């Protein structure tokens, strides 16, 4: 009986959390249609999320692309399929590794930063101060960040895809002995429009999730340093899990047929 009661309480708690997040999401999106807007805050968020994430995205992608090329070459050698390295690197980076790794890096860098910043603002009464200054915190803090992440992430994923393929190209040509021109030609010939579109759509969805969860956990932070720490940790874990779940659903939607 006690186990059932605990399970029931856990299920109710989970449903309530889903409901709160759904309401928060709907409220955020609804502010897209209701002025005032804060373009300065949006611009700053775009620079923070988009521009300053480029180094970490680039480094992650180039090493992943290079490692992928080595793995495919070694694995392909077991059945004389070493020549497929350019194609598999391209499809692997664009369809999966590019969006997912960039999404996870953004969850680590941006979600944590947003959650910590907003949670600190909450703990120090800056959110209350915004309200008393006739400024809706959802419009001023949440919408600019979520919008900026949703728009910046496809660009970051695109850059990550290109750099990842370049990483594979470098390893393929310099280490594995591929002809540079043939490698590039195979990459271009093998990629389809659907691969690129799916990559960019995944980027937008992951960016939305990453920023939204940072804002959500920040706004719901508890008191004190422990509250800020919990909000930050919770936001990164939730964003990472939701990004991976969304990735599965989007892959199913784009490529299941």
């Amino acid at each position: 009986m006690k186990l059932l009661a605990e399970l029931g309480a856990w299920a109710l708690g989970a449903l309530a959390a889903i409901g709160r997040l759904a309401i928060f999401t709907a409220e955020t999106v609804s502010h897209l249609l209701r002025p005032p807007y804060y373009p300065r805050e949006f611009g700053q968020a775009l620079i923070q999320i988009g521009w300053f994430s480029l180094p970490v995205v680039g480094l992650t992608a180039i090493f992943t692309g290079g490692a992928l090329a080595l793995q495919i070459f070694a694995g392909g050698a077991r059945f004389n399929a070493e020549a497929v390295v350019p194609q598999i690197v391209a499809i692997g980076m664009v369809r999966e590794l590019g969006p997912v790794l960039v999404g996870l890096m953004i969850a680590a860098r941006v979600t944590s930063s947003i959650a910590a910043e907003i949670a600190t603002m909450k703990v120090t009464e800056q959110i209350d101060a915004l309200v008393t200054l006739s400024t809706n915190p959802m419009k001023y803090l949440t919408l600019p960040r979520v919008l900026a992440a949703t728009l910046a992430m496809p660009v970051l994923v695109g850059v990550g895809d290109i750099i990842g393929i370049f990483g594979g190209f470098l390893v393929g040509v310099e280490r594995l002995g591929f002809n540079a021109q043939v490698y590039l030609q195979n990459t271009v010939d093998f990629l389809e429009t659907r691969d690129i579109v799916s990559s960019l759509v995944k980027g937008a969805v992951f960016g939305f999730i990453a920023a939204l969860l940072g804002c959500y956990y920040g706004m719901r932070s508890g008191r004190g340093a422990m509250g800020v720490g919990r909000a930050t940790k919770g936001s990164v874990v939730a964003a990472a899990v939701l990004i991976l779940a969304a990735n599965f659903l989007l892959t199913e939607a784009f490529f299941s047929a």
Partner: protein
Amino acid sequence: MIELTGVMKAFGSNEVLRGVDLTVPKGESMVVIGGSGTGKSVLLKCVLGLIAPDAGTIRIGGRDVSGAAHAAFLDHFGMLFQGGALFDSLPVWQNVAFRLLRGSLKRPKAEARAVALDKLRRVGLGADVADLHPAELSGGMQKRVGLARAIATDPEIIFFDEPTTGLDPIMAGVINDLIREIVVEMGATAITITHDMASVRAIADDVAMLHRGKVRWCGPISEMDASPDPYLDQFIHGRADEPIETLR
């Protein structure tokens, strides 16, 4: 005039406000005193609309300010927060002119900056601090900047939440004097919550003592010391003996 009638608020089983009745006449300075955890901050947040009361009414200028009227109320309102609540990412002058740079009260940037510098001067700060960030200021200076922000749009109602907490006695005296001067000069209706009896004597026209979620005593500052109420007497003299329970 601010009127609270039967305001109640509970968090779970913890009944913080148990039917608060309080009237602050227009242009008067009301100071709410009471021990820690008696609901002073919750009361202020209820008036501000940051927390919805479970029961009771809050009327400002004769109008219920819940719902759509709340935004209009905030346009004529200023608040000094306990910790300043300055925005770290903005320089001092943009903190002060926050309202004048966006929203319905938006003005050209140069004009907003001029107002900010004027308000900073009013609280005793020079133009040299205008471009600093809040983290570069001392606690006393942050309070002054918070005060300048609270009065930036010449509000009709101002709230002060523990205005002297964390300040040395000299700086606390300076902030108390500033608050009194500003309230008198602007003719604003003010509510201050504090534990600091020096603040009470410097700022208040009227005093209300909150105890166990209700107004225990309310009256003019001139009658406070002569009040026979044992709870008030204990509080203003800071004694640890009864009737107010203390943990030792």
